[in-house]
């Protein structure tokens, strides 16, 4: 074991940091592979700032096959309603 006070402080601060991992529900970070929050001119739109209920509704419609889709129907079927709602709440931030 190394006993470095600065290091110990850093580890304590790290432990106190709001955890990215805890904030992102399973699968949510994968959305960013196509839906970039940084791009404004994208064909696959940014979801930042959207109404989470609207995003959750879209995921439900994709999952149930009631909304026309290319890949979103295939991806949305990998998640339950509860999981989709959690993803929607995270991805609009």
């Amino acid at each position, binding site marked *: 074991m190394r006993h*470095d006070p*600065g*290091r*110990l*402080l*850093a*580890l304590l*601060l*790290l*432990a*106190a*940091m*709001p*955890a*990215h*991992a*805890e904030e*992102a529900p*399973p*699968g949510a*970070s*994968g*959305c*960013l*592979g*196509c*839906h*970039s929050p*940084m*791009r404004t001119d*994208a*064909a*696959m739109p940014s979801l930042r700032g959207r109404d989470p209920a609207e995003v959750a509704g879209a995921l439900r419609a994709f999952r149930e096959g009631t909304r026309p889709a*290319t*890949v979103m129907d*295939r*991806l*949305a*079927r*990998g*998640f339950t309603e509860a*999981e989709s709602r959690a993803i929607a709440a995270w991805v609009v931030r």
Partner: protein
Amino acid sequence: MRLTRRALAGLLATPALAQAMPAVVVIGGGFGGASCARALRRNGLAVTLVEPNATYTACPFSNAVIAGLRPMERQRFGYDALRAQGITVVHQAATGVDATARRVTLADGSVLAYDRLVLAPGIALRFDALPGYDEAAASVLPHAWQAGAQTELLRSQLEAMEDGGMVVMAIPANPYRCPPGPYERASLIAHYLKTRKPRSKLLVLDAKDVFSKQRLFQAAWAALYPGLLEYVPLSAGGRVTGVDLAAREVVTEFGNHAGAVVNVIPPQRAGEIAGIAGAADRSGWCPIDPGSFESRLLPGMHVIGDAAIAGAMPKSAFAANAQARVCADAIAALLRGTPVPEPRLLNTCYSLVAPGYGISVAGVYRPAEGVLADIPGAGGTSPLDAPASVREAEAVYAEDWFETISADAFG
């Protein structure tokens, strides 16, 4: 008192604390490594990226470059955005890893200590797998399976070929980088020949009978390239077993095939440093824990992207980027001492069979029985009977995805 994340990150960025922070070293600056370095940094960690090249040349869309549909410049990316984010970028090759002492040795002899190491070395081409096909042969009969000079060589050979010339492609057995990539390449070379050298032919020799998006590719070939593209699967003698460099021929059990242009995609394994570090098993690839991407062989070391054995997930840039985020969050949790959440991962791979004609395969994955497994009912390919408007939309999305993924990885 409650510290905001930004205030905390600012505090952690002070020099004394930055030195004391747990150190994460990432080896490999492709889509997996660059994305992971950025995600680790967003988690407030001290990150060093080790990558010998100052410029990265991307493989996705390099088939369009080969077919003359896209300038090479659009494949190139630098690391300035990573530096601006506070990541230390070291343009050296990693030459050694001591997993016990947790140290990486670089080509100039310097040493980096780490608390966690991420290997994202991509692939190495197996120049011992096909007799006659070594590195020297590849300068005549390009593989173009690592983008850069090889991409430009294949492009220039196609341009120089006379109308009426024969193009031969050899495709390996699984697993290899980018499962649908060879078939996209065959499609776009066929498009180039059809529009520019219509008396030419393309012979595609495959070491397997079943491949990604097969029915979609074969339907498109029948519609777009009849009589031009001939596909020979394993069961019809398609497996290439060697190369006769002097004759510009590939060898199969049923005879040799000569080409004016010969593109040999050889078998592959994880990038060299994975073997040097001891993270690769006898298959040549790296077994990992599907929740954290930590090596099954060496604790403290994680492997992402093409080098990893990721179960049902393909070796794709999309998968590498998705794994990078999950791995970064897992490392942050491990360093905090909190449980690693069970991840869910996505993949979408687009292929172009012609300009404005895109097709895709998608999947959703989770750990099951020690591997990343497909979630039943999710994923799959574009419909076989989709109208032209869907093919056009998927071609647009393919390009859009490339813009997004390269912005996420390289800024």
